């Protein structure tokens, strides 16, 4: 497999981002039905699923280089976006070992790892990196082990310590927070950091999810999909930078919505770490503009129905109220009322070229 990386993408002003046809067809569209509400939508994270985004444990796609670059820029400006509490030392190395091993297994052409006892050599071809280090000795790496590996993988990562029948958010590399504050959430328990999501709390989602996660076992990772809408392909929509991105919400018009409003999907995967018993959480974010998504007829129809019928309290929590009517009006043109098949697969092998009338 070879990936043609989009090197010149920008996830901040001046935005520059697009999905190739192949990237669009592999998009993890998050709606298996024509309506949406919260559920404990967790399933085993096995290789393989309804689109190719589910083929690997840590998915690498055409945006890899640009996303690593975006993360590096934000970390340079705000180093605290990667913070790990001291008692998570073992978990950091655990995470490094797991991510490296899986990336090598899934992408042998892109990454290699040579182990000679504790002497490890990691070769990352897309980023042009090669480092030899002593496993377990952080001074042999350019930065901490968790920061080192999460700078080289797509999506945000958090580390959860398990104690007192709960999970605690004790480590983060978060440069793409979807409207929350990782700095504020650091050290909190599962129910505390989920506190703002009151609708899901009342539905009992978090009690069930926590009981399930406490029993998560090594070698049996699980995944779920979460979604929101973001204006412009911007990763850093953190609560602390609200003044930077919040005003974007007022810019959506019927004319620009196809290019400016994005369905933002998080393919979240969770792994029990073998040496520390911590849980690694990957929030792997995918963007597709409304214009792009509507090239897949099933997805355009379904997105229309989901947003049209979205419970108002969910729309409010997700911060969609301002542009939701415009979005529904735009999507209505792509919904001919015909049925959609169950599940999220696009149901087509190739896309009609852009610009051709339907």
């Amino acid at each position, binding site marked *: 497999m070879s990936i043609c990386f989009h090197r010149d993408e920008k996830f901040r002003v001046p935005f520059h981002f697009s999905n190739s046809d192949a990237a669009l067809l592999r998009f993890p569209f998050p709606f298996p039905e024509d309506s949406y509400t919260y*559920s*404990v*939508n*967790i*399933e*085993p994270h*096995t290789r393989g699923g309804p689109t190719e985004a589910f083929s690997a444990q840590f998915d690498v796609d055409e945006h890899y280089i640009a996303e690593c670059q975006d993360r590096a820029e934000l970390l340079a400006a705000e180093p605290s976006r990667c913070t790990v509490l001291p*008692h998570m030392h073992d978990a950091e190395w655990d995470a490094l070992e797991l991510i490296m091993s899986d990336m090598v297994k899934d992408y042998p052409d892109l990454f290699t790892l040579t182990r000679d006892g504790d002497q490890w050599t990691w070769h990352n071809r897309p980023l042009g990196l090669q480092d030899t280090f002593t496993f377990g000795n952080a001074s042999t790496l350019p930065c901490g082990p968790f920061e080192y590996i999460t700078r080289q993988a797509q999506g945000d990562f958090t580390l959860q*310590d*398990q*104690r*007192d*029948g*709960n999970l605690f958010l004790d480590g983060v590399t978060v440069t793409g927070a979807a409207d929350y504050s990782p700095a504020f959430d650091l050290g909190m328990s599962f129910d505390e950091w989920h506190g703002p999501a009151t609708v899901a709390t009342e539905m009992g989602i978090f*009690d*069930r*999810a926590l*009981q*399930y996660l406490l*029993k998560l*076992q*090594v*070698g*049996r990772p*699980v995944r779920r999909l979460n979604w929101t809408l973001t204006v412009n392909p911007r990763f850093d929509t953190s609560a602390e930078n609200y003044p930077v991105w919040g005003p974007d919400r007022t810019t959506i018009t019927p004319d620009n919505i196809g290019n400016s409003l994005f369905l933002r999907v998080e393919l979240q995967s969770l792994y029990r770490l*073998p*040496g*520390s*018993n911590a849980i690694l959480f990957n929030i792997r974010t995918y963007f597709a503009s409304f214009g792009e998504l509507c090239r897949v007829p099933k997805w355009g129809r379904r997105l229309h129905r989901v947003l049209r019928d979205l419970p108002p309290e969910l729309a409010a929590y997700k911060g969609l109220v301002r542009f939701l009517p415009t979005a529904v009006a735009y999507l209505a043109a792509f919904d001919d009322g015909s049925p959609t098949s169950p599940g999220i697969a696009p149901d087509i092998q190739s896309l009609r070229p852009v610009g051709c009338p339907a």
Partner: protein
Amino acid sequence: MMDTLALRVAERDLLSPTLLRLRLTSANANKLPSVTPGSHLVLDLPVKDGARRNAYSITQAGKGGTFYEIIVRHSPTSRGGSAFVHKELTVDSILNASCPSNFLALESTAKKILLIGGGVGVTPLLALARARMERGETLEFHQFCTPEEKPVFESLLAPFGQGVACVHAGRNALDFQTLFRRQPLGTYIYTCGPNAMMERVLTEATAMGWPERRIHQESFGAGGGNPFTVTLARTGGTIPVAEDQTLLDALESADVPITSLCRGGACGMCRTPVLAGTPEHRDHFLSADEKASGRWIMPCVSRAHGACLTLDL
């Protein structure tokens, strides 16, 4: 879905007439997966009348994935699993195991851990105690056994030193109330042994106000249970559910169409109506009232009280 390990018996060491210690290495010279203290391994034991899958705690794991050590009690009431281990396994025997799981892990914030073992329940506690000792962290270890076995257990606990570890012959040799009362705040209890003993630890400690979340009992994840039979009301078929199999697995392998997602009792997708029999609920999905009504079951985790269950399938 589940990864299998091929293991080779590297050493076998009879500690007492009924306690056998095995050192297991990888059969194909691979590194064994690293494990946290408190982990267990499920061995596939090819006994005469089929296969048994028995869970054994790992008492010690070699650094760098070189070996796992387990201790197996030959119990006269065994349905063949432990007898097989004692009689049939020799050095160089090869057997399969599932990758280790852990339902009894250490917690980073524990100021002290208090270990209470009964009989062969000593096994996971040995791993927990060793890890604490190696990190220079506080622990206290009480082990119950019969008078005849006292010397064996004393030698197993010897590494932890006197004053830290103590072996008691007979179940009334120690007063739990006094023991619990003198523990510092932030102490976590880990207990493994006969159900009655673990129950006593739990009742006496919680009665004194000990936080329940700081009392850990070995359960091996409570995945399996007694075998039972399900009858499918709509099609009339009957399907046996083995002791190490979930009801969902049994239905799936009989090609009964059933939806599922999380396979862990949380998502609600597999909810199935029950027409007869009493479900043993193990899920987090049904409400207390729904559970009490006995009208629903979550086949991915729950089982049956009694020998049969009739489902509306």
